[in-house]
């Protein structure tokens, strides 16, 4: 399945200044009963978003409920995506319209899951993260995947980020790992018989 391609993301961002955001918060287990990949976005951060699990009662102090915060980029505190391996977390983030998540530290499995679903995880320094959180609510970030840089437009502050070449190519071209693995089936069968 080819995914959406990512090149340059130029967008406002949603600041979630919380550390150790685990995937149980991103999408609680009771919403994992679906057998398709669709529709998880509406339950993104469900328990932080609504009073008593009632979606007619949004909690006003939660960023996703505040109209001044929107955009394709989610910015979060360190160790984002820890805990359960549920890919539903990445689906929910993607389904809610995000194409990149910025943090100073990502949990391993989440990072892979995000990359496999056309969501770019951007790891920045603590200091840079702090600068982003200090921006006004309509500030714009530019994430340039080909150059591997992220810029705060208002100040011109810029930092580069790491991504391995293979994954970068995949995101730029909308390929996924299965396409690649299927192309080397011969090698896999040779390996098995060795």
């Amino acid at each position, binding site marked *: *399945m080819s995914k959406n391609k990512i090149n340059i993301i130029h967008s406002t961002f949603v600041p979630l200044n919380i550390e*150790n955001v685990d995937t149980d918060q991103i999408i609680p287990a009771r919403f994992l*009963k679906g057998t398709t990949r669709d529709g998880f976005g509406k339950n993104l951060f469900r328990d932080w978003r609504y009073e008593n699990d009632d979606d007619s009662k949004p909690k006003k102090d939660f960023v996703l409920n505040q109209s001044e915060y929107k955009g394709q980029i989610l910015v979060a*505190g360190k160790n984002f995506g820890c805990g359960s*391996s549920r*890919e539903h977390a990445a689906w929910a983030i993607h389904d809610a319209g995000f194409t990149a998540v910025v943090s100073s530290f990502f949990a391993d499995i989440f990072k892979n899951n995000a990359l496999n679903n056309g969501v770019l995880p951007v790891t920045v320094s603590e200091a840079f993260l702090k600068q982003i959180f200090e921006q006004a609510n309509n500030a714009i970030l530019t994430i340039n995947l080909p150059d591997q840089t992220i810029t705060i437009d208002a100040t011109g502050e810029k930092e580069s980020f790491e991504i391995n*070449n293979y994954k970068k190519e995949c995101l730029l071209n909308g390929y996924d790992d299965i396409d690649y693995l299927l192309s080397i089936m011969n090698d896999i069968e040779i390996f098995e018989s060795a």
Partner: protein
Amino acid sequence: MAKTLFEKIWDKHIVKKIEGGPSVLYIDKHLIHEVTSPQAFAGIEKRGLQIFRPKQIVATADHNVPTLNQHLPIKEKLSRQQVDTLIKNCTNHHIELFGLGHPYQGIVHVIGPELGITQPGMTIVCGDSHTSTHGAFGAIAFGIGTSEVEMVFATQCLLQSKPKQMRININGSLKKGVLAKDIVLYILSKISASGATGYAVEYAGDTIRNLSMEGRMTVCNMSIEMGARCGLIAPDETTFKYIHGRAFAPNGEGWIKALQYWKTLYSDDNVVFDKEINIDAADISPMITYGTNPGMGIGVNENVPTANAMAESDRASFVKAMDYMGIAPGAAIKGQKVDYVFIGSCTNSRIEDLRLVSDFVKGKHKAPQVEVWIVPGSKQVEQQAIEEGIDKIFEEAGFQLRQPGCSACLGMNEDKIPAGKYCISTSNRNFEGRQGAGARTLLASPLSAAAAAITGYVTDVSKMLQ
């Protein structure tokens, strides 16, 4: 060249290395369950692919099954649909399923070892982060997402970059009442919930050597809570003895050959780890968590820290956690009342855990206001408990022995802890809402949980042992 245990297994499973990118890693065993597999099945069907090696896959239903009346149809529609979808997919794709009602059914990380499917030197994956459990046998075992489940379905391979190497050495004898669970909660309290991100962690030292396989599984199980890609322990006589004679273990000539290979699986003497940590077992007390990640743990006789004692960057999350938990910073944790006791999950629901608890509670009774759920890890554990009369001891103590599944570990089925209530739990995660929206979880060992069941509050179990 000298290699770590991890590297020996890793190198043997590399099909190909991509320049400037990850490696193609061959997977020996793939375990699946109802929650993270349906979209992967749909994915390969949509691509018009077959499952490449169905014989290397084993399925069970565990995350979303009821733990009472398992012989009846599942009441809740979505849960029933998910379990039925697994049955349909396994039938269509010729995958062995130990579903509800099967004598081998149980939590995926309990049944793999119990059936002898988990073996040293293997690469094992499952769409569940606690796959790290299987590393206790000297295997590379890690959790994957659903897209990766699909990759393994299609090609029996994954793209992975090699993690860094960490070794945690634990030496010395454990104090009274201190179990494997306390060891791992202690490590977590020292290195934090992200302290091993990017690493494969090998546990070594005589304290680890002296643990049973059950204890080793408990330790490796929680490797993911430190952020580690996987945890592993070099196999030894304890490992071989545990595997020998199990349903899917090699036998005859196969056993001799396997054993020969397994005995080569250890980190070479002169190998250098990227990071090494040493722990003295005598420093470990019965542990308990007070916060909302597994790294927020203390000895049961200690006080909860205060915000001032935290690094500035951690203060905000600390305050948020204390708020959620309704626990005062600086207070003693001993004496904290509990409403529910959950003894179960892939961390602590094996027969050894149930035996320990039943020995301890024999002749005692639970505190009146506490509800106690014991959820065995598998059908075989449940059966064994009944054969040994453990069920009777629990009944007399007022403990409820349920049927196997993940249950209140993640509260996906109806086993949820109500909002605001305190649950001392032998599971592995105390995240906000993990055991039910608003539920407050205190992680501890099975003995500490049993002690709290009897007294009704957090108790130093070592004081209750003769």
